[in-house]
């Protein structure tokens, strides 16, 4: 983006150069003996030309002469670098997911360097942070908790028909309710059964008929499978009869009468079935908020508290209720439904009304809890991103408690995070205005005293804020108001958000997600935003953000297809941003700056030469040099740099997320850097030109007394130029593979070979032979050699000096790491670079940890399962604890296991 600004500057320089030269030319030519001395007369038509026209031609001629300052070849190189560079992303083995057999996809290569500039990450929760791999965890019937403890790593290891009863065994009526509950879960769904022997051998089903459940909602599948483990197996839907295999291995048949299908407004669904005994039941399941108001009896309080506890743990909860219908009631309901279904107008609305009428006066049976496990290393990834100075926002459609628990689990919120709530509930208590002002006061009071440094993720015990906002509150904020002061709320909201390290937006509609992204994108700092999601509901947000990333997940490929990049898992985002993004950015910024630099070096001597050749647009270099400079003498080394450079190793970047801050906010392409490069270019150009000038000025530089002409002069300048520019790149290269060596030294050799060849023969197809033997003659002259060496040294000196001084006196984090890793390589080989810098906690690599971690996570999981009944509030503090103790080795292990622990 800044490239275009730089180009405009260069265009201005170009035009002003041409203007200066044109004006000077006419001033200089005002004396006729200069304009047309006797030895150099104009042709008749030239003489007759209109002065104005002549000036215009001269101006354009100067433009042509200096046009190389606008590096056209840069665009080609940048495009090639981006295109070829994106292959490294797809080739990355670490970003390949073994389970799904998917690697990252790059749908566009235009945004590679933006990956290194991300300031806001907007992530979906379900399927992105979590695996979207539902597991039935527990159910609560009449206040009794049932846990099938047979889940391990997402696979059913053994089928267990027993039930863990934590509470005392239920009484007679309880038994009846229990049966009803299980039947309700077995019946109230839209799951289809797929009988298939060949499809999935891994799903070990001990039933005679292995079957898979398919549904649009993974929750339903999880529920049906969970119930299966509790002894009730849903077999199939045949001829409108639902067949259930109950605990006594008897098949029960229910006639499916009506399905009141799920929608996101009602947030519930119902079925009406007729049992073999002739009883008609209406089973309903849905979100707690939509069920409880419709319940007339049942142990509401117990179940409600259970549901809330589960939600706090991040489980997705559903409540189940039923109602027995008499035949009359049913026929009445059926009639209503029939009418509504047949309505020609407002069918949706009428159906909703009918549903409203039918679904009431329930008897509450119980609640279920389904767990959506966090994705592997999600917490680690989020922590890294936050350390890298990226603000992570979670946008989800889930309810607040569930989402907040997930956020705790993935370390978006820490124990010491002060949560600010901006929810409908709070707005109901106070006015939106007051809430916003209160929040901003809290936030700003602190941020005033906070310096930039304390914001660094390395110090975990600083006060940070997490904001929770829900969809309704957001729409209130975003809603344009009559008095036109809506901008105020938005500004205030943005101000609060900016000071929060983490923001959770729950109960979001897909369009609201996009709205939030847009709000941040268009805020006054214009941060680069990234949206990541897996489902169709994230597409709008993915399209809205600067960089859209799709997870190749379970909810289809829609997100992946609409995204700029697609990755198999959320954890890959870490490497994508911290390693690839960082590399891409460093590479492209050097590439752009270097291109400007080398063209300034190239063209500025031409400009200076005009002062010595009567402003006659005489070129300093031969045409072949002019043409090939950008094409072959200096293009390949920088392209290769753009592909291969690793200023620090990928492992270090991954381990040390804070390095990302070094390149944040376009640090390497700011005006300061740009001016530095330009001045370096000008300095070098002045050195080249005046070095050669004083070398040649009215003196002899050969040992046989013969003289050199203007082309030798140009060749000396050009040789110094090519060598300096290439060696400058060599000095900047931190990663010398054999390819780099080959390209850098190769292009210098190519220049020499080409020059020898170009001057070596009389080229029959050329009408001038100006370069004939010029290069060889130059090489035969001692002072030319000495001069070339001297000038190269002088031009490289300031840059080397600047680099060394900056590194010594004001080292950036990156440079410190480089120094340290160098130190390490030299002295203690078994330590990783970071170990030298920080603490020994990362001593062994990730891979060696993982087996231990896995086993750890299993035991921990079991532990959590059993802890559940005891203490729930311990959870956030557990994570906070592990955070705080992160510096010790034991603590690291603990938090490491926490990454995979589901909540």
């Amino acid at each position, binding site marked *: 983006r800044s490239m275009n600004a730089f180009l405009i500057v260069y265009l201005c320089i170009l035009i002003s150069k041409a203007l200066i030269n044109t004006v000077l030319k006419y001033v200089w030519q005002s004396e006729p*003996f200069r304009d047309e*001395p*006797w*030895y*150099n*007369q104009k042709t008749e038509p030239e003489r007759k030309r209109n002065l104005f026209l002549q000036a215009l031609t001269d101006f354009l001629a100067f433009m042509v002469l200096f046009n190389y300052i606008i590096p056209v070849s840069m665009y080609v190189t940048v495009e090639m670098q981006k295109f070829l560079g994106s292959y490294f992303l797809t080739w990355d*083995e670490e970003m390949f997911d*073994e*389970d*799904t*057999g998917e*690697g990252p*996809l790059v*749908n566009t290569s235009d945004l590679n360097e933006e990956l290194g500039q991300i300031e806001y990450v907007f992530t979906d929760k379900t399927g992105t942070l979590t695996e979207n791999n539902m597991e039935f965890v527990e159910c609560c019937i009449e206040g009794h908790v049932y846990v099938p403890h047979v889940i391990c790593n997402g696979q059913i290891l053994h089928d267990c028909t027993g039930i863990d009863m934590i509470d005392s065994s239920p009484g007679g009526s309880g038994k009846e309710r229990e049966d009803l509950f299980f039947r309700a879960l077995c019946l109230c769904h839209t799951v289809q059964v797929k009988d298939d022997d*060949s499809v*999935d051998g*891994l799903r070990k089903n001990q039933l005679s008929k292995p079957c898979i459940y398919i549904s649009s909602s993974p929750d339903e599948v999880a529920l049906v499978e969970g119930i299966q483990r509790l002894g009730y197996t849903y077999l199939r839907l045949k001829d409108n009869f639902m067949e259930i295999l109950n605990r006594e291995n008897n098949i029960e048949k229910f006639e499916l009468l009506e399905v009141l299908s799920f929608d996101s407004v009602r947030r519930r669904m119902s079925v009406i079935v007729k049992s073999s005994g002739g009883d008609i039941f209406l089973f309903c399941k849905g979100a707690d908020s939509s069920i409880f108001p419709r319940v007339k009896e049942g142990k509401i309080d117990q179940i409600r508290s259970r549901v809330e506890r589960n939600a706090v743990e991040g489980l997705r909860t559903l409540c189940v209720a039923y109602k027995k219908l008499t035949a009359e009631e049913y026929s009445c309901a059926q009639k209503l439904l029939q009418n509504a279904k047949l309505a020609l107008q407002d069918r949706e609305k009428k159906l909703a009304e009918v549903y409203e009428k039918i679904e009431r006066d329930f008897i509450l049976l119980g609640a279920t809890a389904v767990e959506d496990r966090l994705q592997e290393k999600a917490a680690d990834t989020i922590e890294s991103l936050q350390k890298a100075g990226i603000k992570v926002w979670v946008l989800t459609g889930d309810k607040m408690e569930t989402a907040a628990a997930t956020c705790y689990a993935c370390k978006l919120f820490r124990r010491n995070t002060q949560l600010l709530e901006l929810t409908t509930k709070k707005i109901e208590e106070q006015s939106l205005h007051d809430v916003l002002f209160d929040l901003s006061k809290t936030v700003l009071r602190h941020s005033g005293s906070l310096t930039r440094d304390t914001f660094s993720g390395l110090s975990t015990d600083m006060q940070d804020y997490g904001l929770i906002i829900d969809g309704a509150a957001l729409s209130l904020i975003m809603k344009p108001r009559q008095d036109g002061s809506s901008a105020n709320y938005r500004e205030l909201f943005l101000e609060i958000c900016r000071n929060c390290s983490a923001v959770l937006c729950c109960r979001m509609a897909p369009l609201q997600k996009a709205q939030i992204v847009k709000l941040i994108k268009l805020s006054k700092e214009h941060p680069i935003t990234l949206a990541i999601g897996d489902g169709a509901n994230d597409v709008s947000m993915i399209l809205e953000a600067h960089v859209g990333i799709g997870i190749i997940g*379970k909810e289809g490929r829609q997100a992946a297809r609409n995204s700029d990049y697609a990755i198999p898992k959320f954890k890959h985002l870490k490497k994508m941003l911290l390693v690839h993004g960082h590399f891409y950015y460093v590479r492209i910024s050097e590439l752009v700056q270097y291109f400007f630099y080398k063209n300034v070096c190239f063209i500025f001597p031409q400009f200076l030469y005009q002062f*010595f*050749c*009567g402003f*006659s*647009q*005489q070129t300093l270099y031969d045409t072949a040099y002019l043409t090939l400079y950008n094409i072959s003498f200096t293009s390949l080394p920088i392209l290769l740099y753009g592909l*291969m450079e690793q200023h620090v190793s990928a492992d270090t970047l991954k381990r040390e997320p804070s390095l990302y801050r070094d390149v944040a906010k376009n640090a390497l392409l700011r005006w300061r850097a740009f001016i530095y490069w330009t001045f370096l270019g000008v300095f070098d150009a002045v050195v080249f030109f005046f070095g050669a000038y004083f*070398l*040649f*000025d009215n*003196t*002899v*530089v*050969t040992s*046989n*007394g*013969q*003289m050199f*002409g*203007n082309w030798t002069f140009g060749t000396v300048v050009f040789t110094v130029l090519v060598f300096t520019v290439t060696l400058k790149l060599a000095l900047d290269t*931190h990663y*010398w593979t054999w390819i780099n060596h080959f390209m850098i030294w190769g292009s210098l050799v190519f220049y020499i070979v080409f020059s020898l060849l170009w001057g070596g023969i*009389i080229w029959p197809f050329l*009408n*001038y*032979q100006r370069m*004939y*033997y010029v290069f060889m*003659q130059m090489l035969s002259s001692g002072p030319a050699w*000495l*001069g070339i060496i001297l000038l190269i040294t002088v031009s490289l*000196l300031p840059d080397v000096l600047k680099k*060394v001084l900056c*590194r*010594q*006196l004001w080292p950036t984090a990156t440079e*410190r790491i480089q*120094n340290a890793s160098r130190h390490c390589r030299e002295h203690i080989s078994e330590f990783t670079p970071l170990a*030298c*810098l*920080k603490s*020994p906690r990362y001593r062994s690599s990730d891979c060696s940890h993982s087996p231990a971690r896995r086993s750890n996570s299993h035991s921990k999981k079991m532990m959590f399962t059993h802890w559940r009944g005891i203490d729930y509030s311990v959870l956030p503090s557990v994570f906070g604890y592990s955070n705080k103790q992160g510096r010790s080795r034991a603590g690291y292990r603990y938090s490491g296991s926490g990454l995979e622990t589901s909540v």
Partner: protein
Amino acid sequence: MAVNYSAKEEADGHPSGGVGVPGGGAVGGGSGGAVKTRKPDNTAFKQQRLPAWQPILTAGTVLPAFFIIGLIFIPIGIGIFVTSNNIREYEIDYTGTEPSSPCNKCLNVSWDSTPPCTCIINFTLEHSFESNVFMYYGLSNFYQNHRRYVKSRDDSQLNGDNSSLLNPSKECEPYRTNEDKPIAPCGAIANSMFNDTLELYRIDNDTKTPITLIKKGIAWWTDKNVKFRNPTGDGNNLTALFQGTTKPVNWPKPVYMLDTEPDNNGFINEDFIVWMRTAALPTFRKLYRLIERKNNLQPTLQAGKYSLHIGYNYPVHSFDGRKRMILSTISWMGGKNPFLGIAYITVGSICFFLGVVLLIIHHKYGNRNTSADIPN
């Protein structure tokens, strides 16, 4: 996309499919069977893990380099400086702008004045010139590097191409044809060829002994033998070969009468070739004659009185130009050029100085940085 990438891998010549991935896993979707894996190859290149040398410019590495550069450059600079100072050079401006100058009478000479205006300048060499002496003429304020001038030549004509001889390139305008005859050699450069004659006499007790001036070997060997060639045809009679062409407007004689010796006549006349190599800057000098050392006992030019006889034909006053005659000896590094020596000494000293400064900084700040970073 999927098709693209797998196709790409095959095109790369790395057939994928080495590692079988257990399909499906817990997903339970339709991903059964042995799906052909798209796992990227674990090659060092693709994983960006090529073995690499990772140099970092630190004070530690740069310090020795600075000292070495300083230590190498300063002696070289001193060597060059001394060499340059040992070179004898004598320069006479004979433009004649000052009324006292003997050449003042010729100041407004025109091209075709016959007989040529001559003037004599006497001078004294304080020191003898020991080795071979090179005689140069120098012009100032003469823009040989003007674009219109530089391109005004036809290299194929000069290379002996017969068709170009009779039909010179358009670039030669307005010096392409004269009275409907093609000019040979065409173009502004050739037309404005320097045509002063310089003769050197040694004055010994009022007798003038002429000093032998050698006119061969002043042009590049390749120019004389390859780049410049006379037109080819029957016989060696240059007059016949240049038949159908006319002389450049300003020349008194046609090109085939530049010299009496056949191997220094026509396009291969060395004075002509020297002039045709356009100078880089408006003040320049060009090699005119060589004075060879006769024997080892005597210096080439003894200290003493000399006189320079000038056939003043070349007008420079109209464009404020100056004309000079330069006598110079030559070393391995050419003529007198104090710049290179001084520059080497300066750069060497700067490097040395910077080395010292860096050393101090390195010692003062180097330890602080490393200790601050290692807490344990």
